[in-house]
């Protein structure tokens, strides 16, 4: 746990603010894209074991659509935008105007995949650029990759860098809601930001918080 012992409540608050700003911009982008009101929940910053992280996204076997991108530049890390399959359907139906659409079996509809990838791209791009403005760090997103699979299989990939130094992850989790619709119809997505271990110090320093106070 040595790597995590350095974190105080001030640090966690700073990370929460990062989640707030980033997801706030992403929510605005989603709202513009769909021409709908989108709400954002208060971000959660949690220090969790890898198994708990899977549970945050609905358990390791839960099937989700996830856009993954690597953050490159001054403070590398991994980012996931996770949607349940139903939510992904809802979104694609709205974007393509195809009410029948569903991810039943591969090969998936190319247009649908592309639309979903683009959604991930726009949302995570706005998350990241606001983060970059806020911290004054150069952060570049990689080309987003989409996967529709079990949570465990997807998220564990983002934990690899972190797993070399720790058995725990610091997750900055922000959920988006569409508040006009019932829970089953709403587009809820989770952003998981997982900075690489060395990036925390860089982010804190950029914001004027020293990591060993």
């Amino acid at each position: 746990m040595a790597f995590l012992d350095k974190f105080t409540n001030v640090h966690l608050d700073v990370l929460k603010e990062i989640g707030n700003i980033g997801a706030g911009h992403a929510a605005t982008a989603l709202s513009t894209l769909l021409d709908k009101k989108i709400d954002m929940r208060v971000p959660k910053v949690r220090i969790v074991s890898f198994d708990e992280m899977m549970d945050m996204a609905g358990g390791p076997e839960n099937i989700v659509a996830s856009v993954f991108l690597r953050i490159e530049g001054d403070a590398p890390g991994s980012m996931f935008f996770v949607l349940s399959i139903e939510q992904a359907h809802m979104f694609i139906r709205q974007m393509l105007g195809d009410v029948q659409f569903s991810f039943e079996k591969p090969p998936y509809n190319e247009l649908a995949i592309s639309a979903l990838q683009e959604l991930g791209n726009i949302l995570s791009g706005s998350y990241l650029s606001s983060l970059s403005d806020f911290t004054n760090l150069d952060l570049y997103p990689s080309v987003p990759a989409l996967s529709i699979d079990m949570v465990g299989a997807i998220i564990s990939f983002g934990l690899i860098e972190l797993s070399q130094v720790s058995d725990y992850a610091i997750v900055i989790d922000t959920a988006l809601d569409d508040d006009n619709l019932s829970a089953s119809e709403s587009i809820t997505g989770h952003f998981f930001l997982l900075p690489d271990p060395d990036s925390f110090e860089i982010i804190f320093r950029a914001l004027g918080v020293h990591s060993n106070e």
Partner: protein
Amino acid sequence: MSESIQVVKVGIADMNIVRSPHHIRTSGLGSCVGVVVYDQGKELAGLAHVMLPDSSLAKGSTINIAKYADTAVKELVNCLIKNGARSYSLKAKIAGGAQMFQYTSSNDMMRIGPRNVEAVKKELSLLRIAIVGEDVGGNSGRTIEFDPKTCLLNIRTVNKGVFDL
């Protein structure tokens, strides 16, 4: 049989052993590799959910031995032998090591799945344990469950359904 069958769950970077009639299971293997080592005669099996290929990658002071291929396989075998398995009759089945995202990068981290598989195979061959079944690579997640009585490894994927190995 009054004793009901329980399924022992193994988390990520974790390991455990099980004796018949119980089963052992791990969920959501992506680039991680699930290694099952078993002694059919004794109906005893162990499962490790390996996350990284080599413990030399560890940067922390204390390491979780179940996380790395080299340490996890050794420990799994030790643990089985301590519980009565015979080293000469140990066999292995492995699954996992997928490449979850099609992503072009020079970063070696992106190849973590295949590297995990190579590392597990190397360690098993050093310990002279034969791999009698494998379902590795590809790009889908797997959930695996092993029955030490039949020695069948049940593999479930999202896109390709369920089969026994």
